[in-house]
């Protein structure tokens, strides 16, 4: 197996798996589940092989594989990973088998289609993280909407159609404007490079040399698309709907990976390609991020539905990530990257646990629960750990990311005000309030609902899923440098790209 083709194997394994799935008989549901799980585990193992050979001291792209695709437009199939995408690639390939495992019982109609769409979704997500050509990136970015649209629409809750159409239209609108920006950038840069190109590595060299006005427009078009995906306040309205209506697996994927595409896009494209514009807009976007942190937390506090509560907590947590990115210091961006992974693990775990209890009781209303600590002790303990990890308790993963982000934004020269860190820090307190309050109402007290008496605790399959997440939750909390050092050099490179002194303007 050649090293530089490993990424291609990772990308195409789920695709080939999805195609092979088509020959299965619809009735053999168990075989289909096992096959899907096997394919996603193979993908994860391949990703681990990449991780094993990954050189964390190298700030550039590794495992680069480039084949000409559409020669007249210089579009190539160009993939590669650096520290930023390495972690997200691992997260994606790690979460996918867990979601398949988590929906083993809860998805019992159209199993074949479900597994098919999950594998296609994985292809799209991996593609987004490893593409080094804007065209290729856009293809995956958009194509990924289709499986997600079906996952919410086919297996979702009551208002699933409203939720899935809203999700689709919101993201589609943002990304279409990004499409024009990509074309505009490629045409303008083509004037300098000599040929039309969407190759990211080539564009890195000319993007920062664009005139301020040009950069601003480009930056806004790209950021709008990413901000919808993150979602940044006030573009978040699709998220609670999509989360609440999606099946558990959809929610986990949505929270753990899809939202990260937005923040990843900011780091991969907006900052390095349009550094001047990024610095200009950093304070404004940070203000939106902080509004998101506080607003998300306050709204989460008053939710009656557990899933909606976790959904709004995502808005709040992603605000931290955006703040970290736009504070533009080494600490804050490192914090943002690790926080992306953390949010994937913690919120993924929370959605999973909400799904576990929902499968048994078919209600997510917090008021229906109460006093289940004695009935389902393992579940209660798991929910406690997941909540504490999401709150940011020292020793668990969330603390590391939030601490680094706050530290970085406190001394950020770009934001140039400690106010950002102070307001953002209040989000940590609010997180403790809404999560612990929910925990108290669900787990403690007296049993009000007789249905709860018959609850069964987590079974071994669910334990496997949770323990897998738990390992990394604790690992990052106790010894984060395993992961921090992966992205360290790439983060430094992004900061270097942002801080390159203004060059001579060569584009407009």
């Amino acid at each position, binding site marked *: 197996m050649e090293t530089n083709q490993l990424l291609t194997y990772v990308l195409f394994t789920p695709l080939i798996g999805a195609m092979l799935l088509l020959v299965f008989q619809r009735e053999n549901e168990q075989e289909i589940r096992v096959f899907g799980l096997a394919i996603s585990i193979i993908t994860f193992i391949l990703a681990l092989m990449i991780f094993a050979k990954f050189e964390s001291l190298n700030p550039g792209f590794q495992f680069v594989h480039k084949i000409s695709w559409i020669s*007249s437009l210089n579009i190539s199939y160009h993939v590669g990973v650096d520290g930023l995408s390495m972690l997200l690639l691992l997260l994606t390939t790690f979460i996918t088998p867990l979601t398949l495992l988590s929906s083993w019982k809860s998805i019992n109609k159209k199993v074949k289609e479900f597994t098919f769409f999950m594998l296609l979704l994985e292809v799209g997500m991996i593609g987004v993280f490893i593409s080094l050509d804007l065209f290729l990136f856009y*293809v995956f970015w958009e194509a990924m909407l289709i499986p997600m649209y079906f996952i919410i629409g086919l297996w979702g809750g009551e208002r699933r159609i409203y939720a899935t159409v809203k999700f689709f239209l919101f993201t589609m609108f943002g990304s279409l404007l990004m499409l*024009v920006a990509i074309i505009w950038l490629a045409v303008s840069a083509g004037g300098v490079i000599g040929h039309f190109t969407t190759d990211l590595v080539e564009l890195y060299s000319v993007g920062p040399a664009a005139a301020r006005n040009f950069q601003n427009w480009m930056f806004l078009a790209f950021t709008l698309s990413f901000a919808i995906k993150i979602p940044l306040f006030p573009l978040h309205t699709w998220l609670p709907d999509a989360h609440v209506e999606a099946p558990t697996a959809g929610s986990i994927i949505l929270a753990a990976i899809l939202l990260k595409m937005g923040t990843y896009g900011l780091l991969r494209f907006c900052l390095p390609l349009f550094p001047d514009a990024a610095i200009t807009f950093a304070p404004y976007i940070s203000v939106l991020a902080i509004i998101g942190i506080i607003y998300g937390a306050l709204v989460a506090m008053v939710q009656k539905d557990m899933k909606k509560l976790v959904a709004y907590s995502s808005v709040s947590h992603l605000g931290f990530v955006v703040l970290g990115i736009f504070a533009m210091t080494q600490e804050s961006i490192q914090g943002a990257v690790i926080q992306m992974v953390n949010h994937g693990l913690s919120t993924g775990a929370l959605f999973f646990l909400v799904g576990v209890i929902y499968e048994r009781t078919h209600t997510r209303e917090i008021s229906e629960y109460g006093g289940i600590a004695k009935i389902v002790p393992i579940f209660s303990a798991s929910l406690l750990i997941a909540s504490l990890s999401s709150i940011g308790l020292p020793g668990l993963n969330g603390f590391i990311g939030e601490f680094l982000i706050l530290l970085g934004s406190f001394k950020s020269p770009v934001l140039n005000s400690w106010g950002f860190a102070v307001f953002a820090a209040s989000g940590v307190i609010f997180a403790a309030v809404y999560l612990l309050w929910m925990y108290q109402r669900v787990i403690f007290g007296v049993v009000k609902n007789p249905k709860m008496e018959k609850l069964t605790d987590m079974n071994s399959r669910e334990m496997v899923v949770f323990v897998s997440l738990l390992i990394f939750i604790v690992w990052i909390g106790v010894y984060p440098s395993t992961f921090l050092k992966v992205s360290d050099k790439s983060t430094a490179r992004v900061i270097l790209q942002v801080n390159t002194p203004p060059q001579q303007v060569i584009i407009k």
Partner: protein
Amino acid sequence: MLNDIQEFYSILPFIILGAGILISVLIEMYSSDSERILPWFSIIIFGIMGFYSLFTVGSVSVIMQNMLQTGGIPNIFHFIFNIGAAITCLLSVDYIKKYGVYFGEYYILIQISVLGMMCMAGAKDLFMIFLGLEIMSVSFYALAGLNRKRLNANEASLKYFLLGAFATGFTVYGIALIYGAAHSTSIDNITAQFPLLSGNLLFLAGVLLFFIGFSFKIAAFPFHMWVPDVYQGSATTIAGLFSTGGKAAAFSAIIASLSALFGGSLHTFLPYLAVISVLSMLFGSIVAIAQDNIKRMLAYSSIAHAGYLIIGLASGNHVGIAGVVFYLIAYTFMNLGAFGIVSLIEGNDETNLNINSYAGLYGKSPMLALLFAVFMFALAGIPPFAGFFGKYYIFISAVKSNLTWLAIIGVISSAISVYFYIRIVVLMFFKDSQSEFIVQHSNMGILAVFISFILVILFGIAPGSIINLISSFL
């Protein structure tokens, strides 16, 4: 002598098709089994022609006293017309039994219309364009009203005929004015004189009239009034042919005459093109949302697509023209696929055409629902299907010509159109069936749709070679 043989080979496609038409007439007259023979005969003729035109695409020659060009871009259009017509015939085998009436003329008229389209694509003379246009249009009028017992088919035919004749009038008047200014109808001649003519008011008026005439044929706003009624009134398979072959033929004639009419520079006509492009895109996309009849919805979507195609023309650069040709290829197959599925779902006597008939289709026929979803996503321009790359290419041409605003309106209109395309997907997959009907089985129809599906995927994933082919002739 060598030249004659050369010319014979170049003209062979026209001879094959002409002979095919005559043989078809004979079959219809003398064979008692013509109902079974004719469709297959037509499909074989179209298939041979489609591949022949692709194999001979490299040998460009001008024949018939500088009237007609074969090879190059015209051959790419010949491929679109013939394969499109072959798919239409394949769909028709079972469909026209359902539609109620069988006429042998059905296939003969399709063959004649394709002959007209081929004349338009290869025209080197404005009269050749006119000749092709009339051959195509007259067979289309007849095809629209083939089912003469049905009121809306009569309405469609009459409406198509009256407005079409009106449009042709514009075109002919335009050609007359151009002749008056240039003293020639040869495209090469006019191109050579273009620097002198470009300021001539008579010439400009002629070009404008010519283009208005074609705006009818490509179904651009505000010359679109006939489109929804004609698509709704005529047989579904025929509506598919109107919206793909007819539109592609009209664009092929515009591209063939582009150098003469615009001399490579569209400055004078840019406002006209930009305005009808914007209006077509927005009008088509917005009005399609309000449609309940699937054929009318596809008709408005076809108007919107005419708008995207005009962006490519308005850009006036080679990328734009290549984009238009590629877009037409992509559009032909995705739209034929969509109309094909509509024709398969359609019951006897034009039932099941309301979009609510599509509710729960996935439960009844998973494969048709999946294929239709792919065509809807492709029409909406979502990667990795062919429609996306077509749009991408056309938007590049707009940005290159400093028409970024046109590209932005293009994507806004795409975003609007996503709504009505995915509404169908919502109905098929997420809603339960409201009406009990059984999808009538048709192997040939499914085969035709499947061919379109393969091509939509293929041109979406690997557009490079076809783009290179088109660009090499520009």
